[in-house]
C-alpha cells in the first residue's frame, strides 16, 4: 500500500512540474514569422554565400553548394575558386589600425592594379547590394561564414580605391558620387538584414565610405549639398536579428526535450531523465 502511495505522490509531483503554460502571444507571433521565413529561399543570401565562385560559375548555385557543405559541417572553402586579395596586403587593412588610412590613401601606385585584378569581386559586391530579399539561411549569427564577410570587406575596399582613382584622375565630384551611390546601396540593406555580424559589418563599410568622402572633400576642398540620410529606426533596429536568435534558442531548448543524455554527463541516464521530467520547455 505504501508503495502505491509513493508512486501516486511521485506522479502528482511530476504532473505539477510538467504542467506547462501556454506559449505567450508574442512568442507565438515570432515563431510564426520564423516558420514563414524558413520557407523562403533568399537569393541575396545565396548570392552572398557564393560571392567567391569561379569567374565562369553561377554565383547562386555556388552559394547553394557552400550552404550544403556548411549544413553538413564540412569546410566550404574547398570550393573557393575566385582569386581573393591576399590577407596580408596592407591595402585591405582596417582603418581602425594605426597608419592604415594613410597607407591606403598614400599608396596611389598600387590602386589601379588591385582594382583590375579583383574587378569581378567588385562587380559581384555591387550585384549583391542590388538584392533586397536578404534572409539568413542559417539559424544563428554564430554560424555566419567569415570568409564571406571578409569578401565583402575586400570588395568595399576596391570601391574606395576606385573612388580614390577617380579623385586623382578625374574629379572629386565623380569620386564622391561613386561613394554616395555605394553608400546608398549599403544603406538599403540595413532594414533588411537579420544577422548581427552582417549588420555591424555593413556599418563598418558605410563608415569607411564616409571616411573617404570626408578625406576627398577635405583634400580637394570640394563641397556639395548632399545630405546623406541618417539611419532610420528600421535601419538601426535589431528586431529581425533578435527574433532569429530567439528562434534558434527555441530550437535549442526543443532539442533538449527528449534527449536526457545531454544532461547525464557526470550522472546517470536516469538523472538526466529526471531533470527533463521537471523541466518545461
Amino acid at each position, binding site marked *: 500500500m505504501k508503495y502505491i502511495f509513493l508512486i501516486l505522490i511521485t506522479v502528482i509531483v511530476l504532473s*505539477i*512540474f510538467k*504542467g*506547462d*503554460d*501556454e*506559449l*505567450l502571444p*508574442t*512568442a507565438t507571433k*515570432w515563431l510564426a514569422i520564423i516558420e514563414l521565413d524558413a520557407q523562403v529561399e533568399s537569393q541575396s543570401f545565396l548570392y552572398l554565400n557564393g560571392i567567391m565562385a569561379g569567374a565562369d560559375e553561377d554565383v547562386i548555385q555556388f552559394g547553394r553548394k557552400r550552404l550544403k557543405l556548411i549544413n553538413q559541417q564540412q569546410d566550404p572553402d574547398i570550393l573557393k575558386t575566385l582569386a581573393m586579395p591576399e590577407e596580408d596586403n596592407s591595402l585591405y587593412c*582596417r*582603418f*581602425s589600425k594605426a597608419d592604415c*588610412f594613410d597607407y591606403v590613401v598614400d599608396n596611389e601606385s598600387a590602386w589601379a592594379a588591385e582594382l583590375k585584378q579583383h574587378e569581378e569581386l567588385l562587380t559581384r559586391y555591387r550585384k549583391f547590394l542590388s538584392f533586397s530579399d536578404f534572409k539568413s539561411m542559417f539559424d544563428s549569427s554564430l554560424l555566419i561564414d567569415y570568409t564571406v564577410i571578409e569578401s565583402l570587406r575586400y570588395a568595399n575596399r576596391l570601391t574606395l580605391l576606385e573612388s580614390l582613382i577617380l579623385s586623382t584622375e578625374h574629379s572629386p565630384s565623380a569620386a*564622391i558620387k561613386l561613394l554616395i551611390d555605394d553608400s546608398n546601396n549599403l544603406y538599403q540593406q540595413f532594414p533588411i538584414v537579420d544577422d*548581427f555580424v552582417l*549588420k*555591424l559589418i555593413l*556599418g*563598418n563599410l*558605410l*563608415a569607411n565610405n*564616409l*571616411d573617404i*568622402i*570626408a*578625406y576627398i*572633400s*577635405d*583634400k580637394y576642398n570640394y*563641397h*556639395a*549639398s*548632399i*545630405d*546623406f*540620410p*541618417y*539611419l532610420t*529606426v528600421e*535601419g*538601426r*533596429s*535589431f*528586431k529581425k536579428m*533578435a*527574433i532569429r*536568435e*530567439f528562434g534558434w*534558442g*527555441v530550437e535549442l*531548448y526543443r532539442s*533538449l526535450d527528449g534527449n536526457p543524455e545531454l544532461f547525464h554527463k557526470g550522472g546517470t541516464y536516469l538523472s538526466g531523465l529526471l*531533470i*527533463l521530467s*521537471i*523541466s*518545461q*520547455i
Partner: protein
Amino acid sequence: MTINGSTPATKDMITMSELTAEQFTKMELADEADYEEQEIDFFNPIGSVLNGIARPSYHTQMARLHDLNGKISLVNSLLESKMNLEGKSSQFSNPYYPNSNAYSVEGNKICLSGPFEDPDGIRCVRYSNAK
C-alpha cells in the same frame, strides 16, 4: 515555460535598439553589461537555469549604429562646408547630445562625444583644419 521565459530579454533587446540616441544615452549602461539573471521559477528550475545563462545585451553594438549617425552628421557638415570649429557655431549635431556642442579635436580628426568607447573612430572624421 522556458520559451516564454526567454521572451522578455528578446523584447528588451528590440526596444533598446529602437530608442533614439538621446534616449539610449540616458540608459547609462556599462560597457560590459549583460542581461541580469532571472529569479528561479520553482515549477521550472531547469528553464530558469537555461534562461539565466548570461546573454549579451548587444548595447555596444547598437551604439555603433548611433555612432554611425554621428559620422553621417559630420560628413554632411563637411560636404556642405558648414564645419566651423571656431566659437560654437558648428552646424553638425551629435545624435547623443543634440543640445550641446559635444565634440573634441584629436590630432587631425574631429570626434563626437558618446556614451561608450569608440576604438574604431566611427564618431570621427579627418579634417585638415582640425589641427
